[in-house]
C-alpha cells in the first residue's frame, strides 16, 4: 500500500539491523513490515526470512535461557600499540565505537544456560569496527575458551566479523594462532565447541576459530569466506557467480555442517548440547 511505504523510515544502506519505528522495510524483499512482527520472528523478515543483523547483546538474550547471563572480561580495553592513523586515528575510531555500542570491544563473553545446560557463549559485535579482531577480541576469545576448558563447559562462539583488525597490524594476525592453540587444548579434552557463522564472517576470523568447531553451522545467506569478494574480483578480474560465498554455497561445497535459520537456532543448539553431554557414568 502506498501510504505505508511513505511512512516507512528509510535506513542507511550499511545498517542491517532492524531500524527503529513502527514500520520497517526488509533489506531483501523490500516489503514494508510491522516492526513488532519482525522482532517476534527473531529479527527475520516474516515474508522472505531475510535475517536482519543482530547486536551481540540481542543475540545472547535470544539464545540463553530467559535471556539471563553473566558477562566476563568486559573491562578489557584496546590499546593503540602502533599509534595507528589512516584517514582517522584509530584512537578516535575506538572512541566512536565505544559511544555507539556501549562496549569496549567487538566481542561479548557470556555465561548462562541453554535448556538447562551451562554454556560459555561468546558473540561478536559487528557494529564495533566491523567486528574486527584485534588484541582484545583475541584475548577475550582465548579466555572464553580457557573458561570452557577449566570448567568443562561447552563453548559456543558466534562470528560476525570482517576479519583481523588492520589497525593493530601483526598483533591482530597472531590472535589467530593464540585462539587456535587454545582450541587445540579444548579439542584434546573433548569439550564441545559449536561455531555459528553469521553475516558476514570473513578473513582471519573464518581462518581461525569460526572454522574449528566440532560443528560449524551458519545462518542462511550469510557471507562467509577467507578473502572478501572485492579482493577476489580484483584478483581474477571476473564477476563472481551469484550466491558465491553465501552459506548455501559453502554447504554445497562441504564447508558447513548445517544451515540453521535463526528462529530454529536455539532449539538446534540445545539439541546439539544434549547430544554432546557426557553420558551418566554408572557407579
Amino acid at each position, binding site marked *: 500500500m502506498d501510504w505505508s511505504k511513505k511512512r516507512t523510515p528509510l535506513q542507511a544502506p550499511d545498517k542491517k539491523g532492524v531500524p527503529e519505528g513502527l514500520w520497517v522495510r526488509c533489506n531483501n524483499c523490500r516489503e514494508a513490515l510491522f516492526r513488532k512482527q519482525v522482532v517476534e520472528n527473531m529479527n527475520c523478515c516474516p515474508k522472505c526470512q531475510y535475517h536482519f543483523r543482530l547486536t551481540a547483546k540481542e543475540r545472547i538474550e535470544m539464545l540463553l535461557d530467559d535471556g539471563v547471563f553473566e558477562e566476563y572480561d*568486559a*573491562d*578489557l*580495553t*584496546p*590499546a593503540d*600499540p*602502533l599509534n*595507528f*592513523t589512516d*584517514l582517522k586515528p584509530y584512537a578516535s575510531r*575506538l*572512541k566512536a565505537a*565505544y559511544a555507539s555500542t556501549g562496549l569496549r570491544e567487538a566481542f561479548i563473553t557470556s555465561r548462562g544456560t541453554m535448556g538447562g545446560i551451562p554454556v560459555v557463549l561468546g558473540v561478536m559485535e559487528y557494529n564495533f569496527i566491523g567486528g574486527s579482531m584485534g*588484541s*582484545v577480541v583475541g*584475548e577475550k576469545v*582465548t579466555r572464553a575458551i580457557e573458561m570452557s576448558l577449566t570448567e568443562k563447559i561447552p563453548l559456543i562462539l558466534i562470528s560476525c566479523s570482517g576479519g*583481523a*583488525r*588492520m*589497525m*593493530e*597490524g*601483526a*598483533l591482530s*594476525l*597472531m*590472535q*589467530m*594462532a*593464540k585462539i*587456535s*592453540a*587454545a582450541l*587445540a*587444548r579444548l*579439542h*584434546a579434552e573433548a569439550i564441545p565447541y559449536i561455531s555459528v557463522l553469521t553475516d558476514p564472517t570473513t*578473513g582471519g576470523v*573464518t*581462518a*581461525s*576459530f*569460526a*572454522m*574449528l568447531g566440532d560443528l560449524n553451522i551458519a545462518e542462511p545467506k550469510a557471507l*562467509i*569466506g*577467507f*578473502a572478501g569478494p572485492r*579482493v*577476489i574480483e580484483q*584478483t*581474477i578480474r571476473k564477476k563472481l*557467480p551469484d550466491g*558465491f*560465498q553465501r552459506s548455501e554455497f559453502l554447504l554445497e*561445497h562441504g*564447508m558447513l555442517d548445517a544451515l540453521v535459520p535463526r528462529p530454529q537456532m536455539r532449539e538446534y543448539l540445545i539439541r546439539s548440547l544434549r547430544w554432546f553431554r557426557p553420558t551418566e557414568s554408572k557407579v
Partner: protein
Amino acid sequence: MAFEGLDFEEALVALRKEIAAARSSPDSDPDHLQRLVDQHDALARELFSRLTAWQVTQVARHANRPYTLDYISMLFEDFSEIHGDRSFGDDPALVCGTALFRGQPVVVIGHQKGRDMKQRIYRNFGQPKPEGYRKALRVMKMAEKFARPIICLIDTPGAYPGIDAEERGQAEAIARNLREMSAMRVPIVVVVTGEGGSGGALAIGVGDRVMILQNAIYSVISPEGCAAILWKDARMAETAAEKLGLTASKLLALGLVDAVLPEPPGGAHADPQAAAETVGASIAKSLSELQRLTPAKLLDQRYEKFRRMGVFTLAAES
C-alpha cells in the same frame, strides 16, 4: 641493459658488477678488489640503515631474493619433494619434502615464488591454495609420527584469493593448520625469509622459534590492500607500510618474533650464500635448544609464547 633492481640500490648493484668483474679477471689487483668490497659494504650499510618500511617491503619482495628452493639447495642435503594433499591435488606454491639438515632427518616446508614469468605463473606467485596447506599439514603429521623436526620457510604475498580456493575451503585449511601446528609434538622452527603475507604465512608459522630476516616483513595485510581499504586509495601503500609495523625490528619489539637474523650488506639477494649461512646457523641453534625439551615442555612453551601475544589495557574511562 635496463637496470633490474630497486631505485635505492642502483649504486650498490653497479659496485657488485665491478666486484664480480674484478674477481673473474685473472690479473686484477687484490687491493683494488678489497677496496671495492669495502666500498660496497659501507655504502650498503649506510643505505640499509635508513630504509623506510616501504623500501623494506620492496627488498622483501626483491626478484633476486633467495627463495625456499634456494635455501633448500644451500642448507639441506638429500631433499626429496613430497607432492599433493592426497585429496585434491598438488600445490607448487608450497613446497614440502624430507631432507637432512646437518645430518639430521627433518621435513622442510616453504612457500615458493618463481623467478621468471613462466615460473611465477606455475608457482601462482607463491600464493597457496587449500591443497597446499593440507599437503603441508600431512607432511608435518608424518614428521610428528617419526619424531622429526619441522622447518618452515615463509615467503608469500598471502593465501590465494580465488574462486577455487574459496570453494575448497581456504579458511578451513588455514584454521586447521593453526590448531594442529600448535599441538605438534616435535620442534617447529620457522624463518620468515621474504614476505610474511597474513594468514597464508601464519598457516605454516606456528613454531617454537619464529625468526625473521632483517629485511623480511610480516603483516596482517599487504600495504596495498590496507591502503585500498582504509585510505580507499592503493597509492597510499607507502604510508600504510609505515603504519602497519611490518618490519623485523618492529615485530621483535612487539614480541611477535623471537629473533631478527642479520642479512649480508645490501640484503639477502646481494649474497645469498651468506644469507643462507645465517639462516642455517639459527636453525641449528634453535633445534639444539628445542630438542633438549620433552614434548610436553615443548608444547607448553609454544602455547605460552603465542598466549602472550597482544597489547591491551584494563578499562579506564575514555
